[in-house]
């Protein structure tokens, strides 16, 4: 981008980039990109490297030559880790499906309808959105205890769905704002009911948006730590919490923690790679 704007600078006053030698701007651009990329990629690289080292070498990662798959084998033999993977997967998937069911129609209402019901809904989710994420945790802990759903799927799902609705209804509203409402009007005239116009015309047009949102929802829940830490215990271990438990009173098992972390990144990485187009679209709104 920088390179393009500089080379097509035209008649504007020469700036910093114009003072560079031919090709200099492009080189500088790539250098900056590489630096930023390095900043983000290096910890991941280090993590992968650590996960392949035996326990006694984790502090000498940069100069050791020994590699092992043992950490992965050890971690996968731990029942709690396997359970945590399953739990995280189930919670992320269920939260995504259930919250989308509400978020899609909620976003549609925010985009298309005005009136007391829509305004009240708007006000409610806006209010909840304004509350800092962290301040939800303690009340939710007491509520789940009171309802007897602490440390259960439901106890974790419901708060996640609530958060998704408050945060992602806006993104969904943005997607629907981008869809021409006259298409739905045409459908009404073509014989659809209001619901039919939503289901058969607006919804199929919003599929890219829904896909983006599904990915964001899933990744959010998969990566989420705070709710998982406070609202679960031994019955429903979540992978992000289990990972942190490699820090214990006898020390930190960096090698095992890294192996778990790498495996945790796997599904997120796959989803991001394949759904990249949708994720970017979702983040743009």
């Amino acid at each position: 981008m920088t390179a393009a704007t500089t080379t097509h600078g035209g008649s504007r006053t020469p700036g910093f980039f114009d003072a560079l030698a031919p090709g200099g701007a492009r080189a500088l651009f790539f250098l900056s990109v590489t630096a930023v990329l390095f900043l983000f990629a290096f910890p991941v690289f280090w993590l992968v490297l650590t996960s392949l080292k035996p326990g006694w070498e984790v502090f000498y990662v940069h100069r050791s030559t020994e590699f092992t798959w043992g950490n992965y084998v050890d971690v996968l033999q731990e029942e709690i880790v396997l359970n945590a993977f399953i739990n995280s997967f189930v919670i992320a998937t269920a939260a995504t499906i259930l919250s989308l069911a509400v978020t899609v129609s909620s976003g549609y209402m925010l985009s298309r309808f005005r009136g007391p019901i829509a305004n009240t809904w708007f006000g409610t989710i806006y209010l909840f959105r304004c509350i800092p994420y962290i301040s939800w945790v303690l009340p939710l802990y007491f509520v789940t205890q009171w309802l007897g759903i602490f440390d259960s799927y439901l106890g974790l799902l419901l708060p996640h769905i609530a958060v998704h609705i408050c945060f992602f209804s806006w993104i969904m509203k943005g997607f629907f704002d981008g869809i021409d409402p006259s298409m739905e009007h045409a459908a009404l005239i073509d014989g659809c009911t209001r619901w039919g116009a939503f289901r058969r015309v607006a919804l199929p047009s919003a599929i890219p948006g829904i896909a983006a949102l599904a990915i964001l929802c899933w990744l959010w829940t998969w990566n989420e730590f705070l709710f998982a830490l406070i609202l679960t215990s031994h019955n429903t271990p979540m992978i992000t919490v289990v990972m942190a438990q490699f820090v214990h009173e006898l020390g930190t098992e960096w090698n095992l923690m890294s192996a778990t972390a790498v495996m945790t990144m796997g599904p997120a990485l796959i989803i991001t790679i394949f759904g990249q187009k949708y994720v970017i679209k979702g983040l743009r709104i």
Partner: protein
Amino acid sequence: MAEVVLSNVNKRYGAVHAVKDVNLTVNDEEFVALVGPSGCGKSTTLRMVAGLEAISGGTISIGGRVVNDLPPKDRDLAMVFQNYALYQHMTVYDNLAFGLRNRKVPEGTIGKEVDRAAGILGITDLLKRKPRQLSGGQQQRVALGRCIVRHPKVFLFDEPLSNLDANLRANMRVELKQLRERVPTTSIYVTHDQVEAMTLGDRVVVMRDGWVQQVGTPLEIYNEPRNLFVAGFMGSPPTNFIDVTVAESDGKLYAEAKNFRVRIPQNRDAALRPYVGRPVTLGIRPEHIVLGEPAPELEAGFDGGINVTEQLGSELLVGITAAGTEIMVSRIDPQQGLTLHESVRLSLNPTHLHFFDRDSEEAIV
């Protein structure tokens, strides 16, 4: 086929009164064009007929049945939108078939109807494409096809050509006219373009601020504007307005302004005599002013100075300062050499003078 009747139709959005007491009868197979500036209530009126807007007051009936409380799907009409409103996730075929499928028409009949509509509009080759693969003109044809495929009682058009470029718009205007001949259906056409309204409408309805200003054939609207607004809105270049005073001399009436004195034709005497000594607005279309000395008995000449000339090739438009105001004269021979600031003699065609009451802005007839 059906007639559409609007009786005292009103639309209010809170404190805003968007459509005021509209009364209009669109006869069976008639094509009526609603024209007016932005915000005049023409689209809102159309959307009330379609059922996309609730009616705040009055009744709308289609084919003798009051449709006020009917949803759009039960009104048996079709609509073309400004931005085509094609279903982007469906092929052209599915777009055309959508309305028929909703009405549970057998697939075989749907196929025949879609082919017929596609044949009429010349879009048979496009049936398998998605809307985004089509040009603006092609998309507009598909939108028209979606209308004719269902044989509805009424067609509604909401500025269907305004997203097209000028050339395509002119072509589509002709095609719409031809389509009318092939598929005669009661139609209401909303536009802000007076050329579309004049060329397409059997009758034209001019609207302003939610009020209907005048209903009439294109020529009635053009030749006998009911008020100052209609006279100014319809016609390009617009009607010239000159503030004059009606004066009487030797029993004859004159319209007088600074350096301007024109005899009012005798047949207008009765209407204008009550205005003697009072200011009125004189309206004259640019093509009804000619360069040169009029016949002396007409007493219709005055002088002006050329301000601006606009060469169109087929004619010359000239802006002239006369009678204390700026006036536009059209249909001047493009070969005529006129220089800026040159003083010219002008004469009015006395049979085409319009007079308007200064207060009510209504035509004095």
